[in-house]
């Protein structure tokens, strides 16, 4: 999208997930909220425009952006090589680490142990890519539309394993005690603000914002508010 056009319109359309707590949720009056929402608002403020937040869904995030229905995605979009072919990413503004979790009774120590198991992931998510990359022959990867459904498959016993983020798993642990534990790490994943290809001026502006928000503590504060700790090191200083 064109920076000048956004500035003259006075609003920036920002797509974010609303079903990905704690990054994207809706508050009780139905408005988008969460880590991404706070970042989005701060971004708009730094651009001197108002934010118009558009709820998007995991599988459709990129179509929203590419079709121009939104100008910017602050939608927990993990930075991956395949995605980078379609969209342009800013420097990381958030991150999660993803791992394989599963029934405490189940003995799976590494990727070889996945063979013969069913494992649920959210379709088109970073976990999906991560699990698919390491899974040996004979792994049954079951792809659901979002994290919650993947978690539901785990909780209902339809699968014994799940590829998920630390954030999601800490919530599950809060609800289920020690029924599930971590099996092995997959990767840590940084997330970037995404724009459509060719929006260089806009991207530069966003990168300025990210750098400033990291240094002045804005992102730390927001992270503290939603995830109970400051922005992790692997996001602050990505490799």
């Amino acid at each position: 999208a064109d920076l000048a056009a956004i500035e003259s319109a006075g609003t920036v359309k920002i797509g974010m997930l609303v079903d990905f707590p704690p990054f994207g949720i809706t508050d009780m009056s139905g408005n988008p909220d969460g880590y991404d929402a706070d970042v989005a608002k701060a971004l708009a403020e730094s651009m001197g425009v108002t934010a118009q937040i558009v709820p998007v869904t995991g599988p459709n995030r990129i179509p929203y952006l590419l079709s121009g229905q939104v100008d910017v995605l602050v939608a927990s979009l993990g930075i991956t090589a395949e995605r980078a072919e379609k969209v342009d990413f800013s420097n990381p503004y958030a991150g999660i680490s993803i791992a394989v979790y599963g029934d405490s009774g189940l003995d799976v120590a590494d990727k070889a142990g996945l063979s013969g198991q069913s494992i649920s992931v959210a379709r088109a998510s970073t976990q999906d890519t991560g699990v698919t990359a390491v899974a040996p022959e004979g792994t049954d990867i079951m792809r659901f539309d979002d994290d919650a459904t993947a978690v539901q498959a785990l909780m209902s016993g339809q699968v014994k394993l799940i590829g998920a983020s630390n954030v999601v798993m800490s919530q599950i642990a809060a609800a289920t005690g020690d029924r599930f534990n971590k099996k092995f790490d997959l990767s840590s994943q940084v997330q970037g603000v995404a724009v459509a290809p060719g929006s260089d001026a806009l991207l530069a502006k966003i990168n300025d914002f990210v750098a400033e928000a990291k240094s002045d503590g804005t992102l730390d504060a927001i992270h503290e508010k939603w995830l109970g700790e400051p922005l992790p090191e692997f996001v602050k200083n990505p490799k």
Partner: protein
Amino acid sequence: MYNFNFQPVFENLDLLGYGALLTIRMSLIAMVLGLIVSMLGAVAKTSGIRPLRWLVDVYVEVIRNTPFLIQIFFIFFGLPAVGISMSPDTAAIVALVINVGAYGTEIIRAGIESIPGGQIEAGKALGLSPVQIFRYVVVKPALRNIYPSLTSQFIYLMLTSSVVSVISANDLASAGADLNARTFASFEIYLVLTVMYFLLALGFSTLFAAIRRNFFSYPASR
């Protein structure tokens, strides 16, 4: 302006083709089983046995007045809680059968009721038993009378089956979604998927027309 690039889609046509096969297989199985459920439901509804009729009524009303999406969630995520656990593909078929069975019950009941009383009386007057009358006099003309509604319900079922990817069952739509997850060529994929579903619908219509010609082709009364 967006650059259309169908390359990734055409490179993976085999994947989509396999997805289409899965959709065809799933739909066919669901249609056959659904037809059986519908027949049983319709017979139960037209029977004199009150509790049976009542039971079928509850089944039909609950299914017809809630979205399929919710139904499939219950079957896949809910039933394990009571010890019934199915693979996604089985759960999808079960959900489709239960769904189409409810609509089919109503359709076939209407078909049975469309048979003129004179036909049944003629059967009685010839000394046929109620079961024989149903089997030889009622079934075929009843199916013929409601054939268009029944087959469009079947095609609707095939189209509805595109949501089974929510429980990670494998079909055409989920093949498209997987491809989408790898290539992000969303519009191209959705466009091709839409065309493929349309072709499937045409294919099923052709099949149903052929069945009609072969099994229900007796001349209509004037």
